């Protein structure tokens, strides 16, 4: 486990007293707190270097450009991605919308299928519902197992059932509501294997080796490529991401959940999609251009700069780079071990409480959070009582209404962790739950 006594000193907000009690912050899946070094990078930028990037010759503009570009290199490296593959956006939601507008608009057609998981956050559902509405495409959900894990068998069945129709597969790397962690290797392998089968079938048919009547007419138009989008909002804060080794096409993340500032996040796009123009800019304006004429515009040669229209949030980019450095210094392997240690401790402590029903996986695959139902008490009431003890948790459907509806859960209470949390925080939570029982039961 990490030395949280030292880490806590870097997070001034954690010394706050809430309702007479020391703050116990367990709402990290919603947003994490920020170390002093991140806040300092932001304020130092505005106090010393503020100027617009790329379009100036003066010293401040040079400094600002250098800060922006070196920060970008650090962030891309942190995610194991090429500099070209990182597109700055505000957050995961905006990244997913970017895929819908920059890729979906020109690649999704009527009758195409997008596979989505019931575990997905609203941001990875609503965006695709809207795209499917515009394109008359179909959104198909993959279910979960009884213990709240991504149902690989159901996924297999749907890959087969909709073979030839599926253009995009989306899912969360880690579920924000249940902490269920999806093994990317397994999913990617299944998707790519499906593609190969389709390519072989197509080739055989085109050579008349397989009878043409064995497939429906639409199969012949089929493009074997299936694109994969991973919502990494809840995994990036806890584990090492090596984008270039994942063999996925899109990876979305938010800076603010990984100790960075709000308002900055990233969309990682496999370089090939940018080179071939399969993914196109969806925001237009200054900065992303090479030439502008009255009749037409030629976009910036730089693959990722052509996606940054208008003045970028340089201060937040600088802050996010420092957050990446902070996590790197702790070591992402240690960060993950720390998180899994807290999750397992929370599960074992909460299970001792007979009023608590834990939802989601209970094994070592669970990452980031523990959610539960306190029998007989609504989650908002649980959270309110915990707040009176200085404990911050989240209650409700956690932006996963389809999941909650499918499981007939009205609302759940979620405790989620970061590098500064310790077992003492979980002890405070279990003590707080005793107060809940005292008041309501």
């Amino acid at each position, binding site marked *: 486990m990490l030395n949280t006594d030292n880490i806590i000193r870097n997070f001034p907000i954690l010394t706050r007293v809430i309702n007479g009690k020391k703050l116990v912050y367990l709402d990290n899946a919603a947003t994490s707190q920020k170390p002093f070094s991140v806040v300092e990078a932001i304020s130092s930028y505005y106090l010393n270097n503020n100027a617009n990037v790329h379009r100036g*010759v003066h*010293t401040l503009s040079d400094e600002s*450009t*250098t800060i922006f570009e070196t920060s970008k290199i650090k962030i891309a490296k942190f995610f194991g991605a090429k500099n070209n593959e990182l597109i700055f956006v505000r957050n995961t939601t905006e990244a997913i919308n970017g895929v819908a507008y920059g890729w979906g608009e020109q690649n999704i057609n009527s009758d195409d299928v997008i596979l989505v998981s019931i575990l997905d956050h609203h941001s990875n559902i609503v965006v695709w519902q809207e795209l499917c509405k515009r394109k008359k495409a179909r959104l198909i959900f993959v279910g979960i197992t009884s213990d709240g894990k991504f149902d690989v068998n159901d996924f297999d069945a749907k890959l087969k059932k909709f073979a030839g129709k599926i253009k995009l597969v989306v899912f969360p790397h880690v579920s924000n509501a249940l902490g269920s962690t999806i093994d990317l290797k397994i999913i990617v392998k299944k998707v790519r294997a499906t593609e190969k089968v389709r390519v072989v079938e197509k080739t055989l048919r085109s050579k008349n080796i397989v009878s043409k009547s064995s497939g429906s007419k639409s199969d012949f138009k089929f493009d074997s490529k299936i694109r994969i989008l991973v919502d990494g909002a809840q995994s990036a804060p806890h584990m090492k991401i090596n984008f270039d080794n994942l063999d996925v096409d899109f990876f979305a993340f938010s800076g603010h959940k990984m100790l960075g500032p709000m308002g900055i996040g990233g969309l990682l796009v496999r370089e090939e999609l940018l080179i071939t123009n399969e993914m196109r800019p969806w925001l237009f304006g200054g900065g992303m251009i090479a030439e502008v004429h009255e009749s037409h515009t030629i976009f910036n040669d730089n693959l990722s700069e052509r996606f940054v229209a208008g003045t970028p949030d340089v201060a937040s980019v600088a802050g996010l780079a420092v957050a990446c450095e902070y996590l790197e210094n702790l070591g992402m392997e240690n960060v993950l071990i720390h998180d899994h240690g807290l999750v397992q401790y929370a599960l074992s402590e909460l299970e001792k409480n007979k009023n608590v029903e834990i939802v989601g996986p209970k094994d070592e695959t669970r990452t980031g959070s523990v959610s539960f139902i306190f029998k007989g008490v609504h989650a908002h009431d649980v959270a309110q009582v915990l707040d009176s003890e200085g404990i911050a948790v989240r209650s409700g459907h956690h932006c996963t209404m389809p999941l909650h509806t499918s499981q007939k859960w009205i609302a759940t209470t979620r405790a989620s962790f970061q590098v500064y949390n310790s077992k003492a925080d979980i002890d405070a939570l279990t003590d707080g739950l005793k107060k809940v029982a005292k008041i309501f039961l």
Partner: protein
Amino acid sequence: MTDIYQEDLIDEAKNPNNYGEMADPDLVSTQYNASCGDVITVSVKLSPDKLKIADIKWKGQGCVISQASMSVLSEKVKGLELEKLQKLTQKDVLQELGLDEISVGRVKCLLLGLNTIIKLVSK
């Protein structure tokens, strides 16, 4: 910072080499500097075996850095194999200009000419 406005550099920009138009070019390309609007048009005549630059002419509007670097580059690439030309870098252009370094904000000015020629011969 180093003083980039050395006298010979300003002279180079004011009296550029190979400036003008070509009657019957093999290749022509125009490139803009997106951050300021500087523009350079390069015309090239290739050797009979199409492996070398036989002749080059260029016209442009822009700052001393972009025009002087295009001027020195036009001298450097005349007679040069296309293969070698494509390997030229920022360092080579700086060297031709007699500069050690340049600020980030001026890199695009410095490389406008080089990018134009490389794009042209890559077609």
